[in-house]
Structures are given as structure tokens and as C-alpha cells.
């Protein structure tokens, strides 16, 4: 059972990153010790903070212009409905606050966003007062390290439904943590055969699935993303991770150029589905190769064959035949 700790407001990401960078250094230093921490049991094991952060009231009434900027940047129709991606932006800093706690076992910097799964059960509108909660759960093995879910929930005040209006699960990978002693650590969980996530200098795949095994479908669209895409989404979301901001700052982290925010690409795909998604929908994404900026992404957003009314989407680099991301949007 998680202890709920109420914060007065959603913290700002900028401050969190500073703390995250400091704790990342501490954790990195810890990793240099001969005995690697393992998940579960024992004094050296990795455990998640037994706490859920909560902000009792987030008033969306004054977010009109921010919402509009978001909707324009992501090609969403401008309306008073908060798209699922916007709710992620809203709740993300609270999840980040969990990750920068002193007792969070993984370093914030260098964590790779593997996947995201968000369900919008009921429409959330501008003017709604929201309760936001976030916590970490399900620390588990990944064949390249360990992965963890950051869960965020949004409830609308006055809405007594047991199911939150919005629930997002962001799955992150921390590389270099040895999962070998964990039960079931065969790489099946989270290992979809694609080289996962924002892995710099990992163009050749990992051997289990050569990149030429995948052939893109016929495209339904093409995004030409200018160099400033990361800065624009960074300004809106507050996620000003240096890997997104400029070629220079990205190089410092091993990327040849700045990379697009994964959630920007997923949210563009969600917008491409359009009104067919309905008022309540589940939206998933798995990230593969990062999108280098400036860059061109071919996308196919098509009706799902196995889920009536639903859509699947995939984005790729046509010249390199590399998948960037794929996901689903399913009406609930």
C-alpha cells in the first residue's frame, strides 16, 4: 500500500531535472561499486519509493492559451477538450517528481522511454478541476536493464466514478542494471524485438531482430519536422531535456543531432487519427529508433484490422527503413 503524499501544486520540471541530474550522479557512483543491485529481496535490491504523490486540485480554467498552443503544435483541432497527450503533459511533472526522490533507485538522466499506454475514460474539459496522482510500480527485468512503470491518474472533481477519467502508464528503461538474477528475466517483457528506445549510437539493432526484417506499409502521411520541433514541444511540455533542445546539447549525450520527444510523435499520431477516436479512447505507443531533427517521418495511420473502430499507427524513416514508433488508438 502506497502512502499518499499531497503536494500543494504540480512541481515545475526545470527544478526536477536539476535534482534528477544530481541524484543520477549519485546513483551512477553507486553503480561503480562491484556488487550490482538486483531487483527484489536482500539489502542491495532495488525497491521503488512506497509513496504516491497527489495534487488535490489543478484548475484548468486558466490553461486556455496553453491548451490552444498545444493543440496547434500537435495538429489537434482547437477545442475545450483536453486531449490525452495534453493530460500526459499535465501529469508528467508529478511522475518525474517521484523519479527524482532520493529513494528512487534509478537515475533520471539516461532513462529511456520505452512505451506509453494512456486511457481517457471520459472527456476532460477546460475549466475542470483535477486531482492528479502519480507513483512508480512494477519494477521488472528487461534484457538490457530494468524497466519501471510510472503511473499517473487524473480525476475530475465531482466525478465519483471509481475509474479515473484519465490514466497513463509510462514505461522506462534504465540500462546497465543487471536483471539476470530476477525471475523471468528472459527479455520477453518489454522486449518486442525492436531495438528499444532512445538508444544513441545503436543503429544496427541488437542482433535478435535485424533491421531489414521489417518492411514499412504504404504511408498515409508524412511529417517534415523542423530542427526546432524539440524546442517547441519542450517549451510546451516543460520537458527541456538537452537531448531534445539542440544538436550541440544532444551531442553531449551521444546523439548526432537533437531528437524529437517520443510523446510528441505519439501525440501527432493520435491527432492524425482525428475525431474517429471518439470522446473516450485508449492510446498506446512503443518507441523504437529516435527521430533525429530536423527529420522526415513517414507514417501510416490506418483502421485496425482486429479492433473495430480502432486505429493502428506506425512511423518510420523510409530511407533507412527504420521504425521510429508504433501504437494503437482504440475507442473505449
Amino acid at each position, binding site marked *: 500500500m502506497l502512502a499518499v503524499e499531497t503536494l500543494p501544486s504540480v512541481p515545475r520540471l526545470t527544478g526536477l531535472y536539476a535534482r534528477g541530474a544530481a541524484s543520477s550522479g549519485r546513483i551512477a557512483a553507486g553503480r561503480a561499486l562491484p556488487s550490482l543491485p538486483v531487483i527484489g529481496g536482500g539489502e542491495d535490491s532495488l525497491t521503488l519509493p512506497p509513496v504516491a504523490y497527489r495534487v488535490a486540485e489543478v484548475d484548468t480554467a486558466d490553461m486556455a492559451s496553453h491548451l490552444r498552443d498545444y493543440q496547434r503544435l500537435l495538429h489537434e483541432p482547437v477545442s475545450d477538450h483536453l486531449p490525452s497527450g495534453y493530460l500526459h503533459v499535465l501529469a508528467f511533472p508529478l511522475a518525474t517528481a517521484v523519479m527524482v526522490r532520493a529513494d528512487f533507485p534509478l537515475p533520471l538522466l539516461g532513462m529511456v522511454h520505452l512505451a506509453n499506454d494512456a486511457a481517457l475514460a471520459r472527456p476532460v474539459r477546460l475549466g475542470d478541476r483535477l486531482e492528479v496522482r502519480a507513483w512508480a510500480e512494477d519494477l521488472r527485468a528487461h534484457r538490457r536493464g530494468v524497466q519501471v512503470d510510472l503511473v499517473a491518474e487524473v480525476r475530475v472533481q465531482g466525478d465519483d466514478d471509481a475509474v479515473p477519467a484519465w490514466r497513463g502508464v509510462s514505461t522506462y528503461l534504465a540500462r546497465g542494471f543487471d536483471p539476470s538474477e530476477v525471475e523471468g528475466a528472459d527479455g520477453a517483457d518489454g522486449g518486442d524485438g525492436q531495438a528499444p528506445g532512445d538508444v544513441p549510437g545503436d543503429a544496427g539493432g541488437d542482433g535478435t531482430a535485424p533491421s531489414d526484417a521489417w*518492411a*514499412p*506499409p*504504404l*504511408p*498515409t*502521411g*508524412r*511529417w*517534415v519536422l523542423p530542427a*526546432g520541433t524539440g524546442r517547441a514541444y519542450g517549451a510546451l511540455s516543460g520537458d527541456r531535456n538537452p537531448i531534445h533542445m539542440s544538436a550541440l546539447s544532444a551531442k553531449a549525450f551521444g546523439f548526432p543531432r537533437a531528437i524529437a520527444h517520443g510523446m510528441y510523435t505519439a501525440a501527432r499520431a493520435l491527432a*492524425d*487519427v*482525428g475525431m*474517429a477516436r471518439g470522446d473516450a479512447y485508449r492510446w498506446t505507443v512503443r518507441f523504437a529508433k529516435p527521430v533525429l531533427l530536423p527529420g522526415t517521418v*513517414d507514417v*501510416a*495511420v*490506418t*483502421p485496425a484490422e482486429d479492433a473495430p473502430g480502432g*486505429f493502428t499507427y506506425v512511423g518510420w524513416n*523510409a*530511407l533507412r*527503413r527504420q521504425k521510429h514508433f508504433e501504437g494503437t488508438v482504440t475507442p473505449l
Partner: protein
Amino acid sequence: MATRSTAAATASRKAPKGTTAAPGLRDAVVVGGNRIPFSRAGKRYADASNQEMFTAALEGLVARFGLQGERLGEVVGGAVLKHSRDFNLVRECVLGSSLSPQTPAYDLQQACATGLEAAIAVANKIRLGQVESGVAGGTDTVSDAPIAVSEGLRRALLAASHAKTLQQRLKALARIRPGDLKPLTPATDEPRTGLSMGEHQAVTTARWGITREAQDEVALASHQNLARAWESGFFDDLVTPFRGLTRDDNLRPDTSAEKLAALKPVFGKSLATSGTPAEPTMTAGNSTPLTDGASAVLLASRDWAAEHDLPVLARFVDAETAAVDFVHGHEGLLMAPVHAVPRLLARNGLTLEDFDFFEIHEAFAATVLTTLAAWEDDEYCRTELGLPGALGKVDRSRVNVNGSSLAAGHPFAATGGRILATAAKLVAQRAAETGRPARALVSVCAAGGLGATAILESA
């Protein structure tokens, strides 16, 4: 086979007693057409505006049919790439022409179907008895296209102009970033997909397995047919020279299969890595170039034409527009006419075999080929068009017999007028030769998954 007149059927319905009886539908006819030669972008018409070009086309039409000082029912037309200052483009052209200044006008826009949609609008008013005569047309310039400022600069300038104090104004202007100063030129990309029209067609081309050779054949025929039509004088009473140009300057009478085969593909290159095997096949030779030009067509009631002692080329029988769901790849962007035509034929009790001529706008050679292939495909016609089976096979020797957009060029809104005038004259000539009625089917695809189609019949 005779055309069943839906007009008569409608007219026979009696209005309830005491209400104003609507007059029955009557015929709308094409009297003639006029255009300026089409010119490749950035060449002869590089500094000609839409207004100048459409005025020239209109004035040529006025001169040809002696309409100086005439009050026409209306002039309808438009431009796809239009400057905001041209909010009344067609009315301004009327005022700059020798038509009576009492001739009303309005602008209309439906991407590449603008010209045909304008003719549908005018013909309908004539058929309803609301006007006796009208001109439909369109104009487009890629060379003199409006250039817009970036969204960032635009919003900053607007905020500054709304500001009440100098301080507010400076604050608004301080938001401008160097990148905002880059001008935006109009693109032919679909706003919703980001794919250019060529890339969209490349996907459709791949889906239908249209070969490079077949496309080059269509392109070659277009040039040869247009060249022959020019040589034979077909366009003598359909075109007025402009800016020293007397013929469409995209026309390559001397092009050959070898020359076309030597061109490198320009669209669909990214499909080479696709799971659907798709070697790029679309080149600058079998795709329509960006073009400047304008066209106008004179339509009228039979009575008006007779009173003015004017010839009648063809009856504007009926029209049908369609739109397709292309955004999520369900249907090809330029396939809407494929859907419109079966509905148009059914309403008029006609089949593909009842037509002497097919004017299918050559946005790309592959567009013509996918259109024809779709109508021949039993499975597609059943599942997609809801027909009992394949719509039918079009006799290729009846398609674009005097060339089309691949050779003439395609100034977006001007293409409908070019095609209508050509089709009207073709059916008139054929009827005069054979003594039997002749019929033409017109099909124009457009951006946004739109399409407009129409039937012309010798009058």
C-alpha cells in the same frame, strides 16, 4: 440509346395549389470557350497576375461572341492559389472587361475541380431559369503565387496591431524570432497528411500496380494528341494569345517513348523500402508540371443563344461530385471521380459504352490509369463502389483524344474550362460528322480527395 430526361420527370410534378409553381428544368448549353495558352511556371507569364490572366481569357470570350456591353446572368470562377486581396477576383475581372458592369460575379474554389464546379453552378442556374447566360472559368498562377509570412510572424504582427500601448506593441514584436522571417510559399501538400499530391498518387499507383511503361504511353499520347489538335486548328477558336504566347509551351511535339523512359522518377521514391514492392514510376514526364493560365466557358439557355445568334456546341446534361476518405489510406487521394461517375451514369441511365469521348484530367498519367483500372475491377467495383460488378472497360482510343493536362499543363482552376470547351467542341464535331448525337464524359480529380464529373451531349 436515348438519354432519359430527368428534367421532364421533375417538371411534370405539379406544385400544390396556391403555391408559386416552379418552372420546369430546361437545357443549359455550352456556346463556346476561350482560354489563354498555358505556360510553364516561371516562364512567359512569370509576372502575370490571376486577375490579368482571367481578364484576358474573359475578354477573348467576349470578343469571340460579341458580348461587349452585354449583361450576362453571372460570371463564376476562381483560383486555387489566391491572394487575400483578390477576395472578389472574378468580379474585378468583369469590371476590367468590356462586359456590362451590371454583370454579377462570384468566386468559387474547389481545388483542381474549381473550373468544372463553376460550370456546374452556372449550368444549374440556367436549367432552373434563374439566369439566361453565364461564364464559368478559372485561373491560376504558380509563378505569381501569394507569399505568406510565417505563423510566428503573423501572430506577432496581429498581436502588435491589437496592442493599445507602445509597450504592449514592442512586447508583441519582441516575440518575433529570426526563423519567423522566412516567407511561406504555397505548397501542394495535402494539409492533413503532409504528403504531396504526387506522393499520394504514387501510393495509389503502387496499390494498383500501374507500370512505368503504361504511364509513359499515356504521356506520349497526350503530347501527340495535343500537337495534332493544334496542327489541325482545333484550338483556333478556343484560345486567344497572351503575352506573345500562341501555344501551350509545355507541349513537346517531338517527345518520344525513349525520351520519356530516360527521365528519373520524382515521386514515390520512399516506397522503394516499403513492404508493397513499389519501384518508383512517376517522372516529370508522366506527371503534370506546375503551370500558369486561365480559361472561360460561355453557357446559356437555348433561347438566349438563339436570340444572340450564337452557335450551340453541347448540352450540359448532368454532373456529380464525390469525395473519398483518403486520410487513413482507405482510398487514393485522386480517386473521387471513380466514385462519382457510376452514380452519374446510373442517374442518367447510361453506361461507359454510351460515350464517344472521355476527358479524364491527367493530374498524373497514373491517375488516368488507376481510374480506368478501378472501373474494370470487378472486386473493387463491388466492395468499394457498391456496384453489382465491374463498371466497364473504357475504349482507350476515346480517352483525351486531343491531349490533356500532361501536354497542355494544368493551371489548377483553369483546367475545368479547358476540358469543357474541348469536350463540347468534340461532341459538336462528331455529331456534325455522323449525324448522330455524341456524348462526352468529363472527370476531374482534385486535392482534398475531391472529384467532379459531368456529361456533355451534342446539342
